[in-house]
């Protein structure tokens, strides 16, 4: 019995360490000004708020990830960004997998809610509205950009099957 008990105690510690580390990181970032690599953050509060005409989004080709904050609920995360046809898009992958459903809450919240969001790119905040793209001619250009920029293959069939969700960061009306 004693060896078994020792093995169980060691296993307990082996589980405890990562669980405590991840919980600490999750709590630490919850109300931060922006997300970390993996964990969601709070509201994006620093940086100038863009007003005026739509920018030329081609500069985002040089940007790896952007910080995306939903208005409801207020939480932010890092996402890829693709510019195509003068518009900008963000992907959410693994949407039909269990891990995807656990990891990508924001995509479900954006799809089911009002989609109001703020995206911070190179320190500037842009008020936007997330609109899920199901079937749009621009999908081919988005797939090409995603493959070229991130080396991640994407097909129109992936999007139409719901494996990968694509949201346009559309301007807010009014």
């Amino acid at each position, binding site marked *: 019995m004693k060896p078994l008990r020792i093995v169980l105690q060691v296993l307990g510690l082996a589980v405890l360490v990562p669980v405590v*580390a991840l919980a600490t990181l999750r709590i630490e970032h919850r109300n931060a000004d922006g997300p970390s690599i*993996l964990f969601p953050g709070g509201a994006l509060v620093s940086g100038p708020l863009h007003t005026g005409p739509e920018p030329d989004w081609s500069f985002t080709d040089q940007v790896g990830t952007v910080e995306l904050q939903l208005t409801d609920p207020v939480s932010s995360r890092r996402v890829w960004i693709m510019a195509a046809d003068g518009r900008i898009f963000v992907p959410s992958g693994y949407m039909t997998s269990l891990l995807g459903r656990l990891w990508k809450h924001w995509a479900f919240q954006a799809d089911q809610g009002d989609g109001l969001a703020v995206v911070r790119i190179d320190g500037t905040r842009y008020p936007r509205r997330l609109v899920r793209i199901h079937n749009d001619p621009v999908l081919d250009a988005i797939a090409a950009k995603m493959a070229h920029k991130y080396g991640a293959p994407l097909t129109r069939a992936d999007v139409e099957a719901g494996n990968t969700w694509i949201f346009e960061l559309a301007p807010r009306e009014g």
Partner: protein
Amino acid sequence: MSMRSYLVLCLAVSAAVCLAVLFVPGVSETVERLVLGFLSRNAR
């Protein structure tokens, strides 16, 4: 090890991990990179 000693050890380890993640430079980034690597390999 008695159960009481084991629980004390668990508490001490938890506190040490918390402090390391919060205050030791590079620890939080390393943890996140490991988890991200795991998710990238296994999220199918």
